[in-house]
């Protein structure tokens, strides 16, 4: 009896956040008739795809024990640069995409190099980048959104492939790449080892500087991609895109069970974390809950999810 009870509760805690997501979905299915429809599920997935891409990159950074506050700003910088090359009848589609990704990558590499060479705390480096990249975005656009984009460009965020919105496909692709890198490659191993015990990793010959640069580069690259998708979805490269997204991405990662102390975490958990926030936003909107109360609920859920997760160990 007691053993079974213990087992049950241990299962609950092990998959706590996942079960939380399932319960949330069940409740919403009963309360709001429109929740469990194919259309709404696709809606939710499309809505979370942007934060999702940021969160996958963020997972790598957080597992190494770092944090990346600059993803929202990098997203915007990549978006405005990409869109400025995406007017109809100018360059082929590949140009804005590649340049946008390179901008994201570049910012990420700068973050990584400053963190790993100069040993400045990631919080500070990315706080500085967050401020500076937003400023650059403003300078680049003079504060005005970049508009008049080609249809091809707008297809990225607005199009469908086999009835599935393209952003969802991109997000799933990024998540799979994340899983692959983190769990199947040497790089992934090194990411865990640095977060678990940096000096042990160093002493084992892990090139800590490279790996750190790598995770920030990855986070920047995914932020660049998110910027392309988002600007295409809203069909404009607005310089205010992505403000505050870093906090949503971090919250998703942490809700998904990745520890801010580093060393542990999974992309799967992050995806669940992203979905919890997405489902919650969607459900509260469907139930017509005021945005003010939504904020209060969201704040409490962030803390509760982590609390639930802590009980696991």
């Amino acid at each position, binding site marked *: 009896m007691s053993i079974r009870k213990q087992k049950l509760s241990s299962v609950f805690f092990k998959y706590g956040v996942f079960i939380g997501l399932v319960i949330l979905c069940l409740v919403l299915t009963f309360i709001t008739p429109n929740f469990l429809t194919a259309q709404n599920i696709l809606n939710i997935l499309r809505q979370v795809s942007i934060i999702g891409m940021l969160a996958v990159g963020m997972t790598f950074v957080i597992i190494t024990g770092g944090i990346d506050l600059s993803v929202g700003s990098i997203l915007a910088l990549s978006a405005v640069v990409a869109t400025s090359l995406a007017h109809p009848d100018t360059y082929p589609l590949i140009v804005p995409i590649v340049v946008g990704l390179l901008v994201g990558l570049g910012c990420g590499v700068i973050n990584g190099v400053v963190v790993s060479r100069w040993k400045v705390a990631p919080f500070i480096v990315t706080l500085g980048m967050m401020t500076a990249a937003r400023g650059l975005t403003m300078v680049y656009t003079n504060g005005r959104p970049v508009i008049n984009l080609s249809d091809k460009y707008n297809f990225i965020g607005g199009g469908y492939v086999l009835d599935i919105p393209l952003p969802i496909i991109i997000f799933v692709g990024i998540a799979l790449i994340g899983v692959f890198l983190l769990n199947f490659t040497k790089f992934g191993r090194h990411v865990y080892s640095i977060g678990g015990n940096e000096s042990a990793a160093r002493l084992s010959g892990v090139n800590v500087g490279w790996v750190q640069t790598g995770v920030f580069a990855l986070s920047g690259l995914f932020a660049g991609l998110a910027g392309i998708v988002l600007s295409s979805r809203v069909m404009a490269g607005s310089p205010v895109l992505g403000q505050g997204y870093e906090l949503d991405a971090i919250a998703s990662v942490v809700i998904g069970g990745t520890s801010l102390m580093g060393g542990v975490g999974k992309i799967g958990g992050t995806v669940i974390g992203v979905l919890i926030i997405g489902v919650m936003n969607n459900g509260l*909107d469907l139930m017509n809950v005021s945005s003010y109360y939504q904020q209060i609920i969201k704040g409490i859920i962030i803390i509760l999810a982590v609390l639930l997760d802590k009980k696991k160990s």
Partner: protein
Amino acid sequence: SGSQNSGSAASGETGGGSGSSDDQITIGVSYQNLQNEFIINIQDALQAKAKELGIKLIETDGQGKAENQISQIENFITQKVDAIILNPFDKNGSAPAVDKAVAANIPIIVLNAQVANMDKVTTYVGSDDHEAGKIEMQYIADLLGGKGNIVILHGPNGHSAEVARTEGNKEVLAKYPDIKILAEQTANWDRAQALSLMENWIQSDMHIDAVVAQNDEMALGAYKAVEAAKLQDKIKIIGIDAIPDALKAVEEGKLVATVYQDARGQGEKAVEMAVKAAKGEPTEKTVYIPFQLVTKDNLNQFK
């Protein structure tokens, strides 16, 4: 103030399930940002009108992000609402939301600010921010006699109202080569930021004759700095929105004027148009509710 009454949760009606099952008309509303007093005024008018007409409202807050508004329109489409009222945050960024509603054959009423694809919109209800920018600048230009030094306090860069009001400001200025802009910068609609910015500008030996603020909050912040420097007799300040605090300031002569935007008229008209459209009745393409200059002289009309 300080009322605990929640805005939207208790929106109009409560009875019945959601969705389109009953014959009650359901309208989905996406506000640009419910942290903005003016938008909340529109919300109040909307809610009151909906209650009067027995309409069910589903209200969502874009929280200053165009992509949120697109998501919200997607949710409305899933919920099969009868009509949508969109109060767009971003002229361009919120435009895809209109496309989606049109594709789903749901009438869409755009409220208060414009979108890039106005041609697809069922009805536009609102005022033209461009116009507001012109009105305030023109008044200042007249007061200065076409000659003098000004500073401009911008809204958040890239915000649709900031973009349009700046265009309006600049359009008038083009006619007055003797009016010089000494400095312009964003204070993000924020009183405290405007206050600091103005304090710093006053320090830098500028001879400012007028402050053109793109909303009242910033105008009031600027006044605070001007008053502290005892320059209130020398510097004229104007804002936009006619929020209660600003009306009081106009009455006391602290602001030379503000520009009134009719929140109530806009909100009510939007609901009326949405109901018409939902019932399949023909609607006007544009319902234009003009801005009005508020000075000490016509103040009583606006209280």
